């Protein structure tokens, strides 16, 4: 993959050892991942993949991997505002939560789907200057 180096923020344990990617592993739920993304974007990293990839109910999708640029420029206001809506969505869903029973049954499927969406993003970004 001739992808320039990217930063991946993830809480998905099967996301590791990806070429040209620095992986920032977040211990916590997808809210924590998104807040970490918010911090990075506010710090000037560009958001490359949509933070709510997939159309699996947000609060039902406990694993999330988000791709950002390694390089830093001026923080992008429109991305921040998009993140604000995403966080609003996730925050408002969070209280309904997902029970551990389902999580245990489905963890592997969820991880696989997240990984699949991530791979799609990386493939699409491959060759792009970021």
């Amino acid at each position: 993959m001739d992808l320039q180096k990217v930063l991946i923020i993830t809480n998905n344990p099967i996301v590791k050892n990806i070429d040209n990617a620095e992986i920032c592993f977040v211990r916590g739920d997808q809210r924590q991942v998104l807040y970490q993304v918010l911090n990075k974007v506010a710090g000037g990293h560009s958001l490359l993949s949509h933070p709510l990839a997939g159309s699996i109910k947000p609060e039902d999708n406990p694993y999330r991997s988000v791709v950002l640029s390694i390089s830093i420029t001026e923080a992008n206001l429109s991305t921040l505002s998009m993140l604000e809506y995403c966080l609003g969505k996730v925050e408002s869903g969070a209280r309904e939560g997902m029970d551990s029973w389902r999580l245990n049954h489905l963890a592997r499927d969820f991880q696989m789907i997240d990984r699949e969406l991530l791979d799609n993003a990386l493939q699409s970004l491959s060759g792009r200057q970021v």
Partner: protein
Amino acid sequence: MASIRVVHYLNQFFGQIGGEDKADITPFSKDGPVGPGTALAKVWGDDMSIVGTVICGDTYFNENLDTATEEVIALVASYKPDLLVAGPAFNAGRYGMACGAVCAAIQEKLKIPVVTGMYEENPGADMYKKDIYIVKTGNSAAQMRTAIPALARLATRLAKGEVMGSPAEEGYLARGIRKNIFHEQRGSARAVEMLLQKLKGEPFTTEYPMPVFDRVSPRPAIKDLSKAKIALVTSGGIVPKGNPDRIESSSASKFGRYDISGINDLTEETFETAHGGYDPVYANKDADRVLPVDVMRKLEREGIIGKLHDVYYATVGNGTSVANSKKYARAIGEELKQEHVDGIILTST
């Protein structure tokens, strides 16, 4: 069938006690209907009867929110009502806030249906319409004649536990609750219809108004800093050493209110940070780095500002939900308003 027992909440004015001069009157009750209550009773006939009226001054209520609410709840509860009606408050701000607060508290504590009436721009409407049914009224008591029947009708429906229709059908302020209904036409036909209306420049109603992160218009500047009382608020989690309120390091469930009268400098021995989102070393060493009490005191001494407000407020911004931080900000804001501060410095990490 026994008629439904209703308690009515009124302020000093509609409770026929007096005007602004009586606005600090403490809550008391009277058996039977008073003022607008008699009009309600007329509409209801024998179905529902106002067994008691609780009256409280608007100033007293708003300045003693917690105790006043407690007192009102006790008075209302003593009548063992099936329903509480408050107001209508029209466009009276403090009365609206009181009606909303009373309704919300009664609904929560006594678990009975509640209803009030307000003009949609009443601040109380904005504050409480999500929690309670608020009948849409005109903006002044001159509209009492139309407000009463609307209030009476909605109250009856609530008391009888009838299925509530849409805001447009029932005349209450939309509560922001999305509910599924079946339309006459399927969605695609509605879309074509709406597009044709939009193309012709005709009025149309979106089925989903976009939520907007609303902006607040900038308030006018402080005219004379040397007379101004300035308050400090921080989301950087600065708390007295030992974190007496146990504010969580993230996803905080509360905010802190701390007295700094007589304190000229925050030191390593006296203050620290409860914030879990950044390296706490620097703030723990000198909390003035987050909450500049030392500089503010110096400027106060020099007469550059009139006064540093003696209480500061602290929350932890880290991971705190949007809804919670809004709630805290509102609560802090209410307190600072009472204290008549002229400006606020909010520091964030």
